[in-house]
């Protein structure tokens, strides 16, 4: 791979100084003159019909300026449900946390007090939490038409993928393995709580949002409030993480806008941390039933998955279960059913379909390797994907190198052993898992202005959710323009000043918007060659609207993770003591920040493997662990050192051959830890998270 001047060299973030001095302005830091504060009242029941709402006492509280309920607000939140009509305030309420009313007041304490003065008469309804229970005859109907959420074709059928003939594949096997796995609802838990500020000037609305995609947010606010798109502006300068739960416009953006309209003042709507855990969304819980057919030599003949995803009462995410595509196999059948439940809503969380699915299939493949007396690394090298769905060539694939180089760096041969051997009470074990993630190309735009002082102003509609997107765009521009990084000024996060960008979801910013930056820079260079550098008040401007596609190939990033754990078999405590991550994301634009992404994603996955779950009380349908302590998200003391290795394949697409990165980082980590625990104790925990009680139970 050829060396470049800017791309490929570690660069601190161009906005790092603001982030370490407290001068980076996040949405919650904004204070507008005359601004009111808003709070939301939420359902305390899992499922209930509202018989009456009385806001009179709340309204009488001095300082209260406006109250929205279903009675005076029938705005539909389009992105809140892709199948049914979801209002800002719904009746019946369908989960503990469903919005009932929103109050704007002079200050946040008054707003909060007012929510407590609203009297709501609820008639409680039966509820259901488990996706399979929800589909049984006689289960309470959560949405009209039943709890089987329609698939992408609009039918109340599972999403199905098939190749070959599964029955034939199972018949051809020497041995068929069958097992099932479950994964929990966990929350994105980004540090910045949800906040939105809305301000009207005449019929023009400005929303200061905390969003992963200003363009989507802009389009959706205009659609839901029936405004002309040119009358809406969305601004998000610094934002404190999202991991998939800030992709769209959200109900609170719309509530803030409606309250601001009604009061004639800017309104800041803030969520509490508990609301953030319950009322936005988390990763969908799954139940996965597998059958895998295998020949005596370890060749796969069939993979069958029947899965169920609990979507909560509104269909906001895909509810997919991915992972089996990392294996080559002639006969495959995947059938996943999405069901409505009365749990918190489920939708995107970093690598939406993947870590839970990879946990399932990689746990089973690990068991198969052991029972065939094969080293799990050799088993994967034998069976890993070579072509996408065994048909379409990849634009580049470094999976084998990820496995081989990762195993070498990890010292796999030394650390891995027969399962459960070793003397207690603390047993060591090693495990690994692999994964892939779609590295998309597609629509985005960029504008670059050059002024006579030699500054290049790069306008991109990114928001930089922590991935260093701004720095990445600056590096790509500097590389293509052949100028130092200091000559690049990035303008971001404002639909009034930036062109369309796909948004920070699907790990697409570098590949989509980065490519647009390259094309705009090429155009600008042509203009400079033609017209010369601008002088005095002159300016040169280049714009690119790009939508590249891949021809007759599939573009994916690949990854293999290796973990070593210590399991205290008396206490059930697990400690991850060594961790190696090997990634093929094509060319790495900024090794400093890219390495941080991998470290963070892997550690987040360890938390998903060992700790996190939004637990529900089955008697009441109420959540018990909404918050950082309850979820037990990873802390400094839990986090091992993550060793990162780059397998930089040459890929013909993307900006300088860069493939996708942010989400692959979490994909195999859950399974790698689970497999290491198996190797340590010789028993398999099949339900996430792998908590102490479950470890002690399988050892008992």
């Amino acid at each position, binding site marked *: 791979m050829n060396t470049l001047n800017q791309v490929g060299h570690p660069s601190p973030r161009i906005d790092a100084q603001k982030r370490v001095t*407290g001068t980076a302005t996040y949405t919650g830091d904004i204070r507008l003159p005359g601004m009111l504060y808003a709070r939301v009242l939420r359902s305390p029941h899992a499922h209930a019909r509202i018989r009456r709402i009385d806001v009179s006492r709340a309204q009488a509280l001095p300082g209260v300026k406006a109250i929205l309920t279903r009675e005076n607000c029938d705005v539909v939140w389009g992105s809140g449900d892709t199948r049914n009509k979801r209002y800002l305030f719904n009746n019946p309420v369908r989960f503990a946390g469903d919005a009932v009313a929103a109050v704007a007041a002079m200050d946040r304490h008054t707003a909060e*007090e007012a929510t407590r003065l609203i009297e709501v008469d609820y008639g409680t309804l039966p509820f259901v939490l488990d996706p399979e229970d929800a589909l049984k005859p006689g289960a309470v109907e959560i949405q009209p038409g039943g709890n089987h959420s329609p698939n992408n074709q609009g039918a109340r059928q599972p999403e199905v993928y098939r190749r070959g003939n599964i029955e034939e594949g199972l018949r051809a096997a020497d041995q068929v393995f069958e097992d099932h796995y479950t994964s929990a609802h966990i929350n994105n838990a980004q540090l910045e709580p949800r906040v939105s500020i809305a301000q009207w000037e005449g019929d023009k609305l400005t929303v200061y949002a905390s969003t992963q995609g200003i363009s989507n947010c802009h389009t959706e606010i205009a659609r839901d409030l029936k405004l002309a798109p040119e009358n809406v502006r969305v601004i998000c300068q610094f934002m404190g993480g999202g991991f998939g739960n800030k992709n769209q416009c959200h109900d609170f953006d719309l509530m803030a806008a409606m309250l601001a309209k009604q009061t004639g003042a800017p309104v800041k709507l803030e969520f509490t941390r508990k609301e953030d855990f319950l009322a936005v969304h988390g990763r969908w819980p799954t139940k996965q039933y597998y059958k895998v057919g295998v020949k005596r030599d370890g060749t796969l003949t069939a993979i069958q998955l029947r899965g169920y995803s609990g979507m909560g009462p509104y269909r906001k995410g895909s509810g997919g279960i991915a992972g089996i595509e990392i294996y080559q196999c002639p006969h495959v059948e995947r059938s996943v059913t999405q069901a409505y439940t009365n749990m918190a809503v489920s939708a995107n969380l970093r690598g939406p379909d993947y870590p839970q699915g990879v946990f399932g299939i990689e746990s089973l493949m690990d068991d198969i390797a052991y029972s065939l007396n094969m080293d799990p690394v050799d088993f994967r090298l034998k069976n890993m994907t070579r072509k996408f769905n065994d048909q379409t060539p990849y634009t580049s694939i470094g999976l084998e190198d990820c496995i081989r180089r990762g195993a070498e760096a990890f010292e796999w041969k030394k650390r891995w052993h027969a399962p459960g051997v070793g003397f207690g009470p603390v047993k060591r074990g090693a495990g690994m898992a692999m994964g892939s993630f779609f590295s998309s190309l597609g629509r985005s735009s960029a504008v670059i202005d050059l002024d006579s002082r030699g500054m290049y102003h790069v306008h991109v509609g990114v928001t930089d959710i922590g991935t260093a997107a701004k720095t990445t765009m600056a590096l790509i521009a500097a590389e293509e323009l052949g100028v130092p990084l200091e000559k690049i000024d990035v303008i971001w996060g404002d639909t009034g000043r930036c062109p369309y960008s796909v948004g920070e979801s699907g790990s697409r910013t570098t590949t989509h918007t980065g490519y647009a930056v390259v094309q705009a820079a090429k155009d600008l260079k042509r203009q400079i060659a033609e017209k010369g550098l601008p002088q005095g008040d002159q300016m040169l401007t280049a714009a690119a609207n790009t939508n590249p596609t891949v021809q007759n190939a599939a573009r994916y990033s690949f990854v293999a993770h290796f973990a070593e754990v210590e399991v205290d078999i008396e206490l059930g405590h697990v400690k991850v003591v060594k961790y190696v991550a090997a990634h093929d994301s094509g060319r790495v634009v900024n090794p400093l920040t890219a390495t941080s992404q991998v470290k963070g994603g892997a550690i987040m996955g360890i938390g998903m493997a060992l700790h996190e779950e939004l637990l529900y009380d089955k008697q009441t349908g109420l959540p018990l662990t909404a918050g950082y302590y309850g979820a037990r998200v*990873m802390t400094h003391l839990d986090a091992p050192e993550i060793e990162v290795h780059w397998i930089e394949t040459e890929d013909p697409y993307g900006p300088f051959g860069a493939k996708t990165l942010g989400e692959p980082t979490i994909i195999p980590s859950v399974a790698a830890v689970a497999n290491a625990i198996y190797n340590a104790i010789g028993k398999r925990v099949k339900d996430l998270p792998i908590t102490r009680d479950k470890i002690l139970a399988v050892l008992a």
Partner: protein
Amino acid sequence: MSKISRRRFFEGTGAGIVATAVPLQGQETKAPPPGTVPRTTIQVTVNGERRKIEVEDRWTLVEVLRDHLGLTGSKIGCDRGECGACTVLLDGKPVYSCSQLAVWADGRSVQTVEGLSPNGQLDPLQQAFIQHDGPQCGFCTSGQLMSAKALLNRNPHPTLDEVRHAMTGNICRCSNYNRYVESVMAAAGTLSASARRKA
């Protein structure tokens, strides 16, 4: 100058922040009658400057810092003593400023992230956080910095484990823990060879 006890605070409007396992619409609380929210004038030294300010007794320290003194570097991540994004130094000790009433700071000294580089000269910790890519989204960064500052003030050459222990009350959901520890070790001049080797 009335002193507010923790009990009185929780009996009043602060009750909304406690307990994770109760239904959302908790018990109705006995808020003071409208317009009669008790107020107290306090004197606090903030980043070396003496400030006199009248506060509502129910305001937390982080609310006063952010909403009334314009120091928005300290973040509110959970408002219930779980995440550490609001960490400031109170008389040199790290505290969650969401879990302190402003009136409790009367007569005391507060240092926030804005006080780390009073003359625009970055603290070695801030420089190390930039070089070693401490902040990803950056929302927890001010809290991480203040916990690290308190540590280095009392222990200029900590071990890796001492850093992890001192900062474990600061959650980073981007999970950039390796980088934060690496940054603090670098600032302390005790960066291990292995951490230095890595990009």
